[in-house]
């Protein structure tokens, strides 16, 4: 555990040091089958039910490459503006670990399928930061170990371990950035924004579930510091187990403050793997190895090289969807948004919802106002993501239409939305069931207006004297009397007509 005294104040860190970032992201592809066998690629499931001789490494079993995974890898590479290898191979990464059946991971080494790309990342203030991509390569996931007994749930001190090989052989793409210089005080933000942008891009490509909480997107953050403007490269640490966007930011920030404190005292950073502790927001050293791991990579002799034809690569390029960054740029222009308005939409993860609501007939202003204000509040109250609210963009558009027709006031509309969220059916059914129709019968309204004027004769006199502003009190009384089901604008017109 690192105590607070071992950390340097963040402002001081960035005043004295330049951070250097490097990010490695592992993405589990959501192909139907695993990377090298026909087993189902599904999250969860009874332990050891999605296994076969190949992914259990039975003697004699051989791998066969999943063509869809290769296609996904190429599409990811193209979306990251990478070059696609004309010829590449798999390689074996040799090390012993119980949850890795073959005791080598079939991966790619010096011949990745995609390399030399970049991803433009939008920071909180709208600035675009370009992160250069070193490579994206294909590999397979390991199984999972469950260490039983002992206090920590770690392998040391456990009574015994259980192994689940359902995940063994699930296709992974590892995306590695080049070293990212020049982030200064924004290093934690850049790290988070990069992973966020990458997640959006992978989602748009529909190649992965990109669920950080389920491990289908995992980030390792490499951080080093060098004395301000020295240009000297510092020793880096690699922090693993960073399972949310917020954790990415916190982990980088923590490592910066921890390393700075050590360097300031003349200490040396140990090149090591560290683990992020979600609860405390700190990192702790992993098990130290006596010697550097030597993975003895060599080309996988059980698989043939992959040589994607240029025609195929170009065909795949045509299948790329609009990239999230470009889409935002387009939407910003189409909906005439300010930077702040766009940021609100992005932060609320509401772009798709608003776009779908516009598609269903609302204007972008109407759709935005519903999703980022009232519905966002509802999501917060109900403790769910905006997209998980039980209301569809079409239903929101319907409510908007009812307001525009004059059938609902804004207040009534909110009640209709609550009804939909509470599972009372379509907007029209809620209106019907809750009796939320606007009172538009002038006769009924006139009666209510007369009653209100009679009840407040002094106000009535003021209005008659031309003090139109006083009409508000009468309108309010009428609205109260009609339980809000009247159109306030119409009521106001009637009040003024009656007093003139």
């Amino acid at each position: 555990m690192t105590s607070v005294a071992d950390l340097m104040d963040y402002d001081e860190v960035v005043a004295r040091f330049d951070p250097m970032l490097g990010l490695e992201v592992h993405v589990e592809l959501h192909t139907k089958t695993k990377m090298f066998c026909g087993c189902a690629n599904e999250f969860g499931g009874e332990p050891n039910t999605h296994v076969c001789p190949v992914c259990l490494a039975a003697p004699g079993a051989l791998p066969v490459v999943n063509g869809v995974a290769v296609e996904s890898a190429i599409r990811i590479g193209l979306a990251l503006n990478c070059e696609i290898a004309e010829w590449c191979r798999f390689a074996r990464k040799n090390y012993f670990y119980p949850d890795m059946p073959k005791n080598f991971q079939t991966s790619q080494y010096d011949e990745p399928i995609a390399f030399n790309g970049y991803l433009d990342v939008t920071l909180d203030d709208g600035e675009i930061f370009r992160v250069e991509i070193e490579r994206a390569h294909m590999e397979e996931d390991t199984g999972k170990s469950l260490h039983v007994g002992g206090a920590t749930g770690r392998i040391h001190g456990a009574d015994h371990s259980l192994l689940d090989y359902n995940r063994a052989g699930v296709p992974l793409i590892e995306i590695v950035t080049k070293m990212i210089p020049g982030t200064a005080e924004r290093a934690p933000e850049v790290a988070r924004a990069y992973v966020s942008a990458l997640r959006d891009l992978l989602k748009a490509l529909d190649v992965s579930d990109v669920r950080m909480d389920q491990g289908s997107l995992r980030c390792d953050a490499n951080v080093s510091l060098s004395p301000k403007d020295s240009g000297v490269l510092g020793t880096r640490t690699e922090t693993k187990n960073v399972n949310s966007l917020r954790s990415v930011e916190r982990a980088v920030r923590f490592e910066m403050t921890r390393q700075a404190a050590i360097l300031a005292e003349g200490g040396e950073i140990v090149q090591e793997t560290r683990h992020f502790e979600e609860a405390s927001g700190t990192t702790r050293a992993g098990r130290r190895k006596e010697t550097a791991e030597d993975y003895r990579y060599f080309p996988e002799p059980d698989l043939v090289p992959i040589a994607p034809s240029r025609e195929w690569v170009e065909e795949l390029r045509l299948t790329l969807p609009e990239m999230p960054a470009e889409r935002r740029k387009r939407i910003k222009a189409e909906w005439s948004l300010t930077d702040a308005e766009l940021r609100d939409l992005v932060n609320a993860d509401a772009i798709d919802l608003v776009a779908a609501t516009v598609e269903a007939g609302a204007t972008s202003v109407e759709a935005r106002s519903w999703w980022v204000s009232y519905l966002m509040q509802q999501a917060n109250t109900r403790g769910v993501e905006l997209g998980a609210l039980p209301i569809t963009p079409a239903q929101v558009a319907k409510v908007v239409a009812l307001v525009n027709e004059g059938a609902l006031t804004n207040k009534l509309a909110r009640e209709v939305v609550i009804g939909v969220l509470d599972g009372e059916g379509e907007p029209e059914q809620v209106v019907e069931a809750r009796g939320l129709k606007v009172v538009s019968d002038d006769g009924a309204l006139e009666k209510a207006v007369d009653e209100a004027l009679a009840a407040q004769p002094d106000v009535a006199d003021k209005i008659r004297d031309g003090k139109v502003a006083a009409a508000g009190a009468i309108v309010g009384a009428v609205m109260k009397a009609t339980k809000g089901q009247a159109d306030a604008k119409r009521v106001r017109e009637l009040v003024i007509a009656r007093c003139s």
Partner: protein
Amino acid sequence: MSLIRSTAAELAAKIHGGEVSAVEVAQAHLDRISSVDKGVNAFLHVDTDGALAAAKKVDDDVAAGRPVASPLAGVPLALKDVLVAEGMPTTCGSKILEGWHSPYDSTVTRRLREAGVVILGKTNMDEFAMGSSTENSAYGPTHNPWDLDRIPGGSGGGSSAALAAFEAPLAIGTDTGGSIRQPGSVTGTVGVKPTYGSVSRYGLVAFSSSLDQAGPCARTVLDAALLHEVIAGYDNMDSTSIDAPVPPVVAAAREGASGDLSGVRVGVVSQFSGEGYQPGVLASFEAAVEQLRQLGAEVVQVSCPSFDYAMPAYYLIAPSEASSNLARFDAMRYGLRVGDDGTHGAEEVMALTRDAGFGAEVKRRIMIGTYALSSGYYDAYYGSAQKVRTLIARDFDAAFATVDVLVSPTTPTTAFKIGERVDDPMAMYKADLCTIPSNLAGNAAMSVPSGLSADDGLPVGLQIMAPALQDHRMYRVAAAYEVARDAAQGGPLIQRVPQLEGI
């Protein structure tokens, strides 16, 4: 002729013609195994029930007038214990897999079963196919039927000895550096390493993935060809499998048997002679070349200078791949488990198991391979070996541009005495000097008996090599040579194996 001394082709004809039942044939071989295998130790496992059941199925087809499953339906076969088969143990000659039963069939096993071939059992081998004498088996050495004090070759000594001891008319071997051909040579039997990629490796427990190739073993060239056509062919479970028609090896064997080799150009590899070659082996080889010439072949000398580096390259590539392939034997999911007594962690159990389960030669090769792949050594060892491999392939290409097949002795000596080379790995490795180049290049090669050595009366093999996917060329030459050899030497060589009854 007795059932056990018949060829596979003869047995098939008798079974399919209803002259003899497949069950009788299987029983005759099972009886033979019972009577002689105590002395030979060719079999690690005999599947009496499975064999008789498979034979019965063929008899049912014949009795019902249904077409038989293949030209070899009903013929017994011995399967090298490196190919997995459901219902039988697979040990690879190692303690680490003792008692393990595969949950699936290898593609070769499946093809054999579908062809109605009767699998008698699993044959002995050097542990994980590492060796040239079958002395590295954890289950004791196999003895050469020609002289029980001598080795039957390796790693597939069990398969070839089973043929020479008339325990089976057919066998499957695997050849990584000569493990089919060298045992064939020293037991006076035919052994074929088909083109790499033409027989599926799915279910062949890997020693060295880029070199391993299963192939047919038999007592005649035609029998080997018939078996070749049963086991070869594209398999989508093996990514290195070649999607091309199986070369017409049976037709080539039949054509060759007519005895005419005119128009065939034969290259004698000049690198494979001289020092280290037994005089009787060289004499037999020269006589065989002369016989080819008399059959009409044009014989020329061919130099393949890179072949001199084949053995050192092989002993870097094969152990490198083996060090990785054998990593899966870690006690976690199957096989031997040592030290799981609550006092050792998983890593210690792995280490204790591997220490107890692997024999000395396997450990030696795992260490060589681990070293050769280590960072800082990779380029000098594994990297250089791969370059040599390319050069060897170029030598073959150049040679096959001028000749149809290449020939050499299969192995420099006849069968050596059991125990003679166990403490001298280099001497042991030299047994594969002439066979290794074809594994490195991936082309087809086979060994066919060329007679008995004048100096010790033991069998000598003639190696015939052909370009990739031109396996039929060597079958044609081998079949023609076989006829001429029997005519010149007074009948089939194999019938001169000493009596083994009563040992």
